[in-house]
């Protein structure tokens, strides 16, 4: 087998840790171990939110210089949420490259750094599902519905959950 790069070693280690001690409601691993840079994860909707009972598949794409640069996380199919772009890409501070925020909005500690991990990303995404952050909205349409017509927003998400589980 070819010698593994730092990124591959680190990804395999994180995969091992996630398999041995998985956080509740989270499942993640490489789509195929031939390519450790592409992961697929399942995230359960947090209870007491409109995403409850849902299971949401997402793709993690790691850069070749991981863990220096953060991966991208994309829900596939896209999910209606104020902090998820219409194409499914998640926009939260932990997935933003390290350093100062040009808009001075996020503190550097919240952003990506090599001490973060896949597990921390997925836990952040779970809490993002439970509590959307409308101040740094990504999907403006979803933000509007979430803010002004919460009933309609909840209804659409529940519809999505039902369809996704074939009920």
């Amino acid at each position, binding site marked *: 087998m070819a010698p593994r790069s730092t990124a591959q070693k680190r990804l395999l280690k994180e995969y*091992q840790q996630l*398999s*041995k*001690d*998985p956080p509740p409601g989270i*499942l993640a*691993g490489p789509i*195929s*171990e031939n390519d450790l840079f592409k992961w697929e994860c*399942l995230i*359960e909707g947090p209870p007491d939110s409109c995403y409850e*009972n*849902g*299971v949401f*598949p997402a793709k993690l794409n790691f850069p070749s*210089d991981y863990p*220096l*640069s953060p991966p991208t996380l994309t829900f*596939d*199919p*896209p999910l209606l949420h104020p902090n998820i*772009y*219409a*194409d*499914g*890409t998640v*926009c939260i501070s932990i997935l933003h*490259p*390290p*350093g100062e925020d*040009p808009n001075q909005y996020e503190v550097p500690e919240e952003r990506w750094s090599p001490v973060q991990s896949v597990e921390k990303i997925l836990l952040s995404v779970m809490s993002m599902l439970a509590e959307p952050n409308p101040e740094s909205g*990504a*999907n*403006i349409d979803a933000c509007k519905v979430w803010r002004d017509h919460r009933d309609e927003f909840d209804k659409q998400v529940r519809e*999505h*959950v*039902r*369809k*996704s*589980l*074939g*009920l």
Partner: protein
Amino acid sequence: MDSSTLAFIVILVVGFVFLRWLISPVDPLLTNDETENIVHRLNRSPDDVSARRIRRPVTDDMIEVVRTIAPQLTTGQIRMDLERTGSVELTIERYMETGNLPFPPGESRPQHTDDSENHNKPPAKTSSINLIEKYGLTSQVEQEEQNGGVDSTWHDDKEDRGSLLSKKRAEMILGARRRLASQLQKENSA
């Protein structure tokens, strides 16, 4: 002049010559054997000697080291400066002093594209919304709940790991489906 002064001067001169010889550059015209010989006598690895005189080629490792310290620099910037200085330390020192490094010709500051414009188009192709179809679980939907428990073993074989992962995936989806089904049932009967 007494003999001890003479001896002292002689030792100084010999010491000076010896030191000069010790730190003098390796003559590039020496053959490999001779170089090795000298290197051996100086008790240093060949890398140490040549690194000081000959510029090391820029390796990916060097770029990675610089990037750890200066994450906002582009690979092009780092490579150009490393080619100029030939040393990670000098490049980092330059970066620390100026806060930036010159861009190589033809490359400019990466444009910060507006993310919301890039990402707010619906994707061209998405996978099926129905997870039962997506993961081919139709045959397992009607099965009774399996008392699998959480299997957190780590198999040595990657095939085993992959199949365990997809098994856990199926369990998670089917579990969620059962919960939702019972919740819907409750709502309907209420």
